[in-house]
């Protein structure tokens, strides 16, 4: 029997993308602005979120979906700041997928949420492939990581809308050029909005939280 070629041309993640589209419609319908936070392990996602939550809690209704390979440690840290947190333990999985996030959304009161943070598993490769239904992706990069990280892991920087450089309080101890790091990131994605922050000293957090507040307002007006 002769072989026959059948054109398929189906996106491999079409099943994930379908669930993400439904989650996005649900979030937008409730006027929730949502952020998918991606970085290497140890870049400071949870600490940035703790500071951000403290600054925004008086003015906005917040929620968090916190993903980790194992333990509820990050979720417990964030719960101490008095906001609703849903933990996802991936049990070995190196990224969150839309199904996991969609199931977590069912346990959150979206009608009472203005801003939802989705803290992805610490990994700069795999999470960038999976749409979770978020409004946009934020990639973190700490100043201890090397200026060429955007060139080594282009997909995460390409798909993010925002780059938050973290731990800038450590710059006096390092040979790290923030400008070179930003130039490298912009060479991958010229549309990135960039913030330089320190969760330790609070530097840069005002611009970051003002930007978030502006996005929440724009999201409410659009819904």
């Amino acid at each position: 029997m002769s072989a026959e070629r059948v054109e398929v041309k189906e996106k491999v993640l079409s099943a994930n993308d379908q669930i993400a589209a439904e989650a996005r419609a649900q979030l937008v319908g409730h006027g929730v602005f949502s952020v998918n936070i991606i970085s290497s392990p140890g870049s400071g996602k949870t600490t940035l979120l703790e500071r951000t939550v403290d600054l925004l809690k008086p003015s906005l209704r917040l929620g968090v979906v916190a993903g980790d390979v194992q333990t509820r440690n990050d979720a417990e840290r964030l719960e101490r700041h008095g906001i609703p947190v849903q933990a996802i333990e991936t049990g070995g999985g190196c990224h969150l997928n839309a199904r996991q996030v969609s199931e977590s959304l069912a346990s959150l009161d979206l009608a009472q949420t203005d801003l939802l943070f989705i803290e992805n598993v610490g990994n700069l490769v795999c999470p960038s492939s999976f749409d979770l239904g978020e409004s946009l992706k934020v990639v973190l990069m700490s100043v201890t990581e090397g200026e060429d990280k955007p060139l080594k892991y282009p997909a995460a920087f390409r798909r993010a809308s925002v780059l938050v450089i973290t731990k800038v309080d450590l710059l006096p101890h390092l040979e790290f050029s923030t400008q070179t790091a930003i130039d490298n990131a912009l060479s991958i994605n010229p549309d990135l909005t960039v913030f330089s922050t320190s969760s330790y000293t609070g530097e840069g957090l005002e611009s970051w939280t003002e930007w978030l507040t502006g996005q929440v307002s724009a999201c409410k007006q659009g819904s």
Partner: protein
Amino acid sequence: MHEMSLALEILSICERELEKLPETRVTALGVEVGAFSGVDADSLQFCLEVMMSDRFDGVRCEVVREPGEAACPTCDNRFEVMQAPFECPECGGLARGLSGGQGLQLSYLEVE
């Protein structure tokens, strides 16, 4: 290392396609991986071979990397890129941003 879960997704798309093609046997499949998709083509090849040979005896897996395209800000030349930085082959200018090279799709099945 999410290539194994991607290989699983590809397997389930194959199974769905086969429902439309009863009494056929898959001999080969082709996957296109964007050079900027965040998916490692070699790892995906390995995962596919492991997973597919279990289900379809003797199947051949063809994984092809698809380039992205960058535009030179100096001379307007458009050129294919497989990795950053995006240096123009004509004038050496550095392009910022790219189009394409992001996707991941099952492009074809070969059946008999």
